[in-house]
């Protein structure tokens, strides 16, 4: 125990030191961080480590069991791939943000208490935001702010839930929580924001396509998978998750069909794949949890691979990423094309590729639990995956109409990064026993049976036939430059509406106040205070003068003198005193 460190520390400290390293050593140094981290990780025995007293609680920075270890392994692997892919970047900001982000994800996964869990959870947001802003476009800036606001709201929800929960139970241990009561519901929803549940999801499809080419690789791996881990840890077997997961698999595929930006297609696809994991966690049997976790591992790899291939396309084609602008790139980017097809085959669950051995576990668990509707929603979603990720992504970028673009092949380091991810996609699919041996529970599932292979192959080939049929008959929706409104409409347009409502109501009050108080009321009060002493005074004096026999010219003269004295505030002391007395008497009577 003396010679191992918390996994998060290596990445966070290592990342913060990146700016100090100059020149050619920087690349080697950055690639060394996940390697050193991995060697450190495999030397950490299972159990509870790094317990630090904090007030009357214990903070635990190393809750190491099979669930957290598997996420630890895959986070190290994907960090290495993502760093390699980004190694050409000269600016330190993205390197530091990426490494701190990866470190925070490891912090979340190995946190044994809710306090440190929450701190790392928030660091995920703070570090990742720079991977979006670093694109330095107006769209990225806007998407980044919205990303930050949504995650801040989700974080507050989680914090409120944790505070209530700790208050109720008296323990800050992070383990099984279960959905029972208001506090746990807040925690549940806090996880749901990061997990991109329906209606809580638009931050993902808004921000990921706007992030930098290399930043998206980090983003696709960590935030949602940390949420999957948290759900698997705290809410396994929660029935609501079955339905949430099933809806997540189904609704994004409709959006993916009509989306033009290929990285946004992949973002919808990411929600769809996380749906399978959430559904598996909801089912909660050992096979379902195994399926969810192994699918998380495979999804990190093939989604990163797909994002990397699309990133390479952007990198070589002046940031073009819309279907309408691309096409026919296989001619000059054959290796990127092959890697993209491997990613597409993996996500489509083609036999021998990774999706085949993990997604089917979740579906089998649903079928074993006699959840017929869920099973067929997942099957429908599997066909949908083929449409957008399996066919649309490679077809519109590398085949389809010839855009006339003849870019160079992706740079070597990007090809290597894609090659590593592609290798593991095929390795996990062809030799699943290695992945299965790392899963939280013992695996009895056998993916390669003849009916399963034949059924899945039929599914894939006839979906492809449908694609050809729709394309040749001209019924496929034309790709067009457009925005498709999603649930973010509520806060993007809602934000504008709020602004307008506030503008009309608050500025309206201001205008009315200006007119009434400044324009009218003040003048009237002035006039009243000028006029009333005159009226009062003369009202008393004229009868008095009449009684004392003043008439005609004399009376007029007196009235004029009194009036001008009052208007110039030069009334004789006697009159002022009389006025004050009358005023006091009046007040006395009125009171």
């Amino acid at each position, binding site marked *: 125990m003396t010679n191992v460190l918390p996994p998060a520390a290596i990445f966070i400290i290592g990342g913060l030191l990146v700016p100090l390293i100059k020149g050619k050593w920087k690349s080697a140094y950055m690639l060394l961080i996940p390697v050193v981290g991995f060697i450190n990780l495999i030397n950490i025995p299972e159990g509870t480590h790094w317990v630090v007293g904090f007030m009357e609680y214990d903070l635990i920075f190393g809750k190491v069991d099979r669930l957290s270890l598997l996420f630890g392994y895959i986070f190290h692997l994907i960090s290495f791939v993502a760093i390699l892919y980004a190694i050409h970047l000269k600016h330190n900001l993205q390197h530091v943000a990426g490494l701190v982000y990866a470190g925070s994800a490891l912090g979340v996964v190995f946190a044994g208490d809710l306090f440190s869990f929450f701190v790392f959870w928030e660091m995920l947001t703070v570090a990742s935001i720079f991977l979006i802003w670093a694109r330095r476009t107006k769209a990225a800036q806007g998407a980044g702010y919205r990303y930050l606001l949504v995650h801040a709201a989700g974080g507050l929800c989680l914090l409120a839930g944790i505070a209530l929960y700790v208050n109720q139970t008296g323990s800050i241990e992070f383990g099984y929580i279960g959905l029972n009561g208001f506090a746990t519901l807040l925690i549940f929803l806090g996880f749901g924001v990061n997990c991109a549940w329906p209606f809580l999801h638009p931050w993902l499809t808004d921000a990921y396509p706007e992030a930098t080419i290399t930043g998206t690789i980090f983003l696709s791996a960590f935030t949602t998978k940390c949420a999957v881990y948290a759900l698997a840890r705290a809410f396994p077997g929660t029935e609501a998750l079955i339905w949430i997961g099933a809806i997540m698999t189904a609704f994004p595929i409709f959006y993916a069909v009509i989306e033009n930006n290929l990285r946004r297609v992949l973002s919808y696809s990411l929600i769809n794949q996380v749906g399978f994991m959430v559904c598996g966690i909801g089912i909660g049997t050992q096979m379902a949890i195994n399926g969810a976790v192994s699918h998380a591992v495979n999804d990190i790899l093939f989604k990163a691979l797909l994002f990397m291939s699309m990133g390479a396309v952007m990198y070589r084609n002046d940031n073009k990423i819309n279907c309408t602008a691309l096409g026919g790139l296989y001619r000059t980017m054959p290796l990127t094309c092959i890697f993209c097809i491997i990613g597409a085959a993996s996500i489509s669950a083609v036999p021998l590729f990774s999706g085949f051995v993990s997604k089917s576990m979740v579906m089998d668990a649903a079928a074993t639990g006699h959840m017929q509707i869920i099973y067929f929603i997942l099957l429908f979603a599997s066909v949908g995956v083929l449409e957008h990720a399996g066919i649309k992504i490679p077809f519109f970028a590398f085949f389809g109409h010839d855009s006339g673009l003849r870019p160079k092949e992706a740079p070597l380091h990007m090809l290597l990064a894609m090659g590593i991810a592609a290798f593991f996609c095929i390795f996990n699919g062809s030799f699943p026993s290695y992945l299965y041996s790392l899963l939280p529970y013992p695996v009895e599932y056998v993916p390669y049976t003849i009916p399963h292979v034949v059924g899945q192959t039929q599914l894939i080939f006839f*979906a*492809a036939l449908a694609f050809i049929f729709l394309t040749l008959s001209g019924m496929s*929706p034309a790709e067009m430059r457009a925005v498709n409104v999603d649930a973010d409409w509520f806060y993007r347009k809602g934000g504008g509406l709020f602004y307008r409502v506030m503008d009309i109501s608050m500025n309206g009050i201001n205008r009315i106040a200006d007119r009434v108080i400044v324009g009218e009321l003040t003048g009237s009060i002035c006039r009243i205070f000028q006029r009333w002493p005159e009226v009062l005074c003369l009202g008393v004096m004229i009868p008095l003068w009449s009684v004392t026999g003043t008439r005609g010219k004399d009376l007029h003269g007196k009235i004029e003198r009194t009036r001008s004295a009052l208007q110039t505030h030069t009334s004789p002391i006697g009159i002022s005193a009389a006025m004050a007395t009358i005023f006091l008497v009046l007040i006395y009577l009125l009171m």
Partner: protein
Amino acid sequence: MKQENSEDKKYLFDKPGNMKILAWSFFLSLVFLLVLEFFIHKHSHFPSEEWPEFYCVFAFVAFVALVLSAKYILRPLVKRREDYYD
């Protein structure tokens, strides 16, 4: 000179012969998969999965339904100009 060469260059699928081979092998695999079904013992989760050629029909119908509903129902509802949010 080199530039001209690269423009004239025929790539893999620019040759009609290659496309023909690809199309034929695809359609032959479809037939093979349709026939193969009758030689395997299915163990289905639900009764409907035992219908002959269930996965073939399901995939085709689901795919077409998905694309057409996205095109004719979702797109008219959600499509806006590119500067909608600006």
